């Protein structure tokens, strides 16, 4: 504080407990300059249920809160408390010959430690739980939701509700909503039921064939106009186009019509999953034949597209293929590796790599995690290295 730090050389102050000592509890929080700036300008948020470990969120980052205690005596001196001791400061210590003109400074609190922030992965598991309470299934559901009745809102969450209940920063929640392909409908964030979405994509692809549309250049307005006759709302049709496609640069001449290119790999994966849903395990050749048969003409399926979605096992002379999706795996590294080794005790790098995506571990490289959770063995330089549990 100014009084202590700006003291003239050879100046002195009397330090004493102020009359408000220990009447208020103060906490010390250690912050980066960037976090400090955001705290002073916009404020931060501590989040957590009574049962959770609390986290502190900025607009972009989530921090774990670590309490560090000290055995030293730490005294806090408030700049507003310096004058209260003025009257008591009459006795200048006689042995301080070099100290002149004593003033006084008041100690308002003694703190036993401080709070440190450690960047941590956002705790998004609860987001999935909340969103899965009421996935969007059919448009009939919508009318029920819009009723004024309080029950109509059960299991539905606005962005504010989610920000309030999920231990992650606003932008991390936004990103997670995007990655689970949630859509905001009438103010509530919903994930769309997988089967419902598949059904809708089927309708869109069939309609495209019927009308001879180029699925790499779909006119949004056209698609919406035709497909809504099948009972889908424009909002959900647009969402489906966005999930399976990417927007094509809009022509400046006609800014109102958005155009979408359905992505080959996403559509192919959609059909592959459909096959695997009907039969969980396929001989590789049979699968490839069936896959090619099902896919609309003009699209070229590649096994490469299914990385992170299926596992291929070689049993004897045959290769077998089954569904094993990276999106179904936990995001915490320890849990992810344990799930992977439960599925398969040995992994080659090429097979393992797609399943390491999307792990939440700030400041940890993939290499560091491999060292920590796996053992790498290579019998000879000619064979690929194998990763086994540690």
């Amino acid at each position: 504080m100014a009084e202590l730090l700006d003291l003239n050389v050879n100046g002195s102050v009397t330090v004493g407990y102020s009359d408000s000592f220990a009447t208020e509890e103060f906490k010390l929080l250690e912050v980066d300059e960037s976090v400090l700036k955001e705290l002073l300008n916009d404020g931060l948020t501590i989040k957590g249920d009574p049962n959770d470990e609390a986290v502190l969120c900025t607009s972009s980052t989530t921090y774990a809160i670590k309490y560090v205690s000290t055995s030293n005596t730490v005294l806090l001196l408030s700049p507003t408390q310096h004058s209260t001791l003025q009257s008591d400061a009459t006795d200048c210590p006689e042995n301080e010959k070099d100290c002149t003109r004593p003033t006084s400074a008041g100690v308002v609190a003694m703190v036993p430690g401080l709070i440190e922030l450690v960047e941590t992965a956002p705790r998004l598991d609860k987001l999935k739980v909340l969103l899965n309470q009421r996935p969007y299934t059919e448009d009939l559901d919508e009318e029920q939701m819009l009723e004024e009745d309080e029950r109509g809102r059960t299991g539905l969450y606005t962005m504010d509700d989610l920000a309030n209940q999920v231990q992650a920063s606003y932008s991390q929640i936004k990103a997670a909503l995007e990655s689970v392909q949630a859509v905001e409908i009438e103010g509530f964030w919903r994930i769309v039921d997988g089967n419902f979405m598949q059904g809708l994509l089927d309708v869109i692809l069939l309609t495209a064939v019927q009308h001879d549309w180029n699925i790499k250049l779909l006119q949004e307005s056209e698609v919406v106009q035709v497909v809504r006759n099948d009972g889908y709302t424009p909002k959900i049709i647009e969402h489906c186009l966005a999930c399976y496609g990417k927007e094509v640069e809009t022509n400046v001449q006609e800014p109102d019509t958005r155009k979408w290119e359905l992505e080959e790999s996403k559509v192919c994966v959609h059909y592959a999953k459909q096959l695997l849903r009907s039969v969980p395990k396929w001989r590789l050749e049979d699968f490839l034949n069936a896959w090619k048969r099902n896919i609309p003409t003009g699209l070229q399926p590649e096994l490469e597209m299914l990385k992170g979605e299926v596992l291929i096992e070689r049993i004897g002379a045959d290769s077998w293929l089954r569904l094993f999706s990276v999106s179904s795996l936990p995001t915490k590294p320890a849990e992810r590796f344990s799930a992977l080794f439960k599925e398969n005790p040995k992994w080659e790098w090429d097979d393992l790599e797609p399943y390491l995506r999307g792990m939440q571990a700030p400041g940890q490289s993939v290499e560091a995690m491999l060292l920590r959770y796996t053992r790498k063995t290579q019998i000879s330089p000619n064979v690929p290295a194998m990763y086994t549990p540690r």
Partner: protein
Amino acid sequence: MIEVASAASDMQIPVKCSCGECKEWGMVELQGSLEIQHSTSLHNLTIGSLCRTSTSTYKLVIGYHELEGTKVTLKKPLVILKKVKAPDAMDTDPVSSSDPSLSTSTPVEMHVVGIIRHKLLFKSRPKALISKQEVKPKKQRELPSLKLESSRELLDPS
């Protein structure tokens, strides 16, 4: 059971600055602890005398002990937070307001009341100013848990 979203308990505590410009507070760190002799109240009790001996060194005299210290710039700033009742919550739940813990259902906010960027650190052993060795009755202070590490005394000036 599914809870109604609108009735979900508020699990956020805003941390913000309400003062506009936060003043820098002073922080004095000593090794060990202060002990009080025959004093009932700490309020307005003098601890000792602090003298700046050069631009970066300080001397703190507590009773018969002299401590040498330095001004240290903290690697990261510290903010001083104070818990306050949320202004918009005054009329909602007055029942649990006596419970100061963070998990109380009364909405609270943490307000920044000051910033610390430097501390005066006294880490050396205290030097005795006089040779007289007194046998003093020691009484630990009723203050937050601090381990007794050295026998520095705080003398009542009276």
